[in-house]
């Protein structure tokens, strides 16, 4: 699977530090994600995975380091700038707009790629109307893409758990990302749903979107990711193809504790 990645670097961070008061949540983290790959991020609870995720999507401002995406400097940039340059995300605890319909949720995702302002909204000039129709059409096709088109008119909160996860992915895809960052998308799913999700992620990757994935389901990660990085106590302790990582003694130690000898 690794050969699908063509080696061109899409995202690169180095020397990233993030402190919360006395807690050194990320310490000198460096990684690079290649175009077209599925890049996994694993680690024990509290290792800093979600913190790193929030740094990469602009929700947290790192204290030090370098962060470039497609060669654009994104160090300490606001989330909307990060999204605009092509990184979209989902959340570990689903954060949909619960009282908007599924379709409207995805339409919000088009915000960053559309331009209508107050005047356009009020006067509804042909350009704005065309744009609005485009938003609608694109949102519909994205719902179709993730397989929940028939739920388009329902409030997001009334969707089943698995469908909410899919909706979050559709909403993120609506921003036209080159890198899609998924924070534990399979959490709480049964094996069937997990398998469907895996297929969806492969489909997204095959359509040209690079994926960054946090997940606890090691089996899923091993079968899906091209490369995996392991975080522990805010430091990257290993990186490589799944097979390497699985046999890395430091990874085993981090997960199972030090061996007695």
């Amino acid at each position: 699977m690794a050969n699908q990645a063509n080696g061109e670097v899409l995202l690169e961070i180095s020397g990233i530090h993030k402190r919360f008061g006395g807690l050194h949540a990320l310490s000198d983290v460096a990684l690079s994600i290649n175009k077209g790959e599925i890049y996994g991020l694993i680690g024990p609870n509290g290792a800093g995975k979600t913190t790193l995720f929030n740094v990469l999507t602009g929700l947290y401002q790192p204290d030090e380091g370098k962060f470039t995406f497609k060669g654009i400097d994104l160090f300490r940039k606001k989330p909307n700038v990060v999204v605009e340059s092509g990184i979209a995300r989902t959340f570990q605890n689903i954060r949909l707009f619960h009282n908007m319909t599924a379709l409207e949720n995805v339409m919000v995702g088009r915000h960053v790629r559309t331009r209508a302002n107050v005047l356009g909204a009020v006067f509804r000039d042909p350009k704005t109307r065309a744009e609005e129709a485009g938003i609608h059409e694109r949102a519909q096709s994205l719902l179709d893409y993730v397989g929940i088109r028939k739920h388009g008119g329902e409030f997001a909160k009334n969707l089943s758990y698995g469908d909410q996860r899919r909706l979050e992915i559709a909403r993120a895809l609506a921003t036209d990302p080159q890198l899609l960052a998924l924070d534990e998308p399979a959490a709480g799913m049964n094996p069937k749903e997990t398998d469907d999700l895996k297929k969806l992620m492969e489909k997204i990757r095959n359509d040209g979107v690079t994926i960054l994935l946090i997940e606890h389901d090691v089996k899923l990660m091993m079968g899906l990711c091209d490369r995996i990085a392991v975080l522990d106590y805010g430091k990257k302790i290993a990186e490589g193809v799944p097979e390497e990582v699985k046999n890395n003694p430091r990874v085993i130690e981090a997960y199972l504790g030090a061996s007695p000898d």
Partner: protein
Amino acid sequence: MLANIKQSKPAAYAGMAIFAVVLAVLPFVMGATLGNTWVRNLDLAMLYIMLALGLNIVVGYAGLLDLGYIAFYAVGAYVYALLNSPHLVPMLSGTGFEWLLHMPLLVVLPLAALLAGIFGVLLGSPTLKLRGDYLAIVTLGFGEIVRLFMNNLDRPINITNGPQGVNLIEPVSLFGHKFSQAITVFGIEFRSVHLYYYLFLALALLIIVVSIRLQSSRIGRAWVAIREDEIAAQAMGINTRNVKLLAFAMGASFGGVSGAMFASFQGFVSPESFILMESIVVLAMVVLGGMGHIPGVILGAVLLFLTPEVLRDVVNPLQDKLIGERLVNPENLRMLLFGIALIFVMLVRPEGLWPSKQRKAEFHEDDDLKAKDAEKEAAHG
């Protein structure tokens, strides 16, 4: 819902036509049956509808609790008052700025909206990181600051004339006709209150159309997204700072229009008209009617404005008749009923009297979950 309207298009058009006729003849019917005071009340109700719709953008759509909204009404009122009264004449004469005075309505009104909008941005920008209670307290403070400025800007240079307020404000003049004079068209005499009624109705309709169009636009969706989950909205690439400021500016500009019309209608403005209680009343209109839902907000505005007027007309005669003396002041009764009504609505219909489908869902989340659980149980059992 849209489909329903499409299915019954003729019926919808007929309904709208009837509604339009009712609105058109309303002041005459009211004037004939209840007297001219009631036509005046109708005019003021229109102003409150505009105010409530403006606050609805901020509170209802974007979910930003604003307790100082009346400040923008004040800005609009003072802009109109100062530019259309003799008060600033001595200060401006000979400075080359005389052209500022007595500008046509179609210039003053957008100017009032613009200035109120700028104040909206000014007052909104320091509150961007605040939410809920904190936002409410800061906006409350801003509302008071604006009022106190109006109250004290008579020194060192007399701009606002302080607590005495600005007097002798000229009435609206449109197409060369002064609204203070009656006009007879087709044998029907349109008096000042009637003319104002149609002007306010037109402005209210304009604000309604703008509200509806904003709501179903890219901007409106962004507002609701921020209300629903600000972090997720950011993660969708919404520039929350700009979008929030836009909500403040739009809401404030509606308030400014309403304020300017208030000044011309009353002929007099003073800081007393813009106390905290007014902000609270407008907020109550939005909440009571149904946040974010235009028909609900209009209903709330009409109910809360007209109830005290009805009480004023009913309570005293009733007391005279029943007990022969006036024990209860209708003004006090008004506050009492206000309180009771609000408590009642919050207990029974927290989503407001006429909520949108969306809001209704929001306030009955538990019910939904319960229904879902019941469904699941039924499916398993």
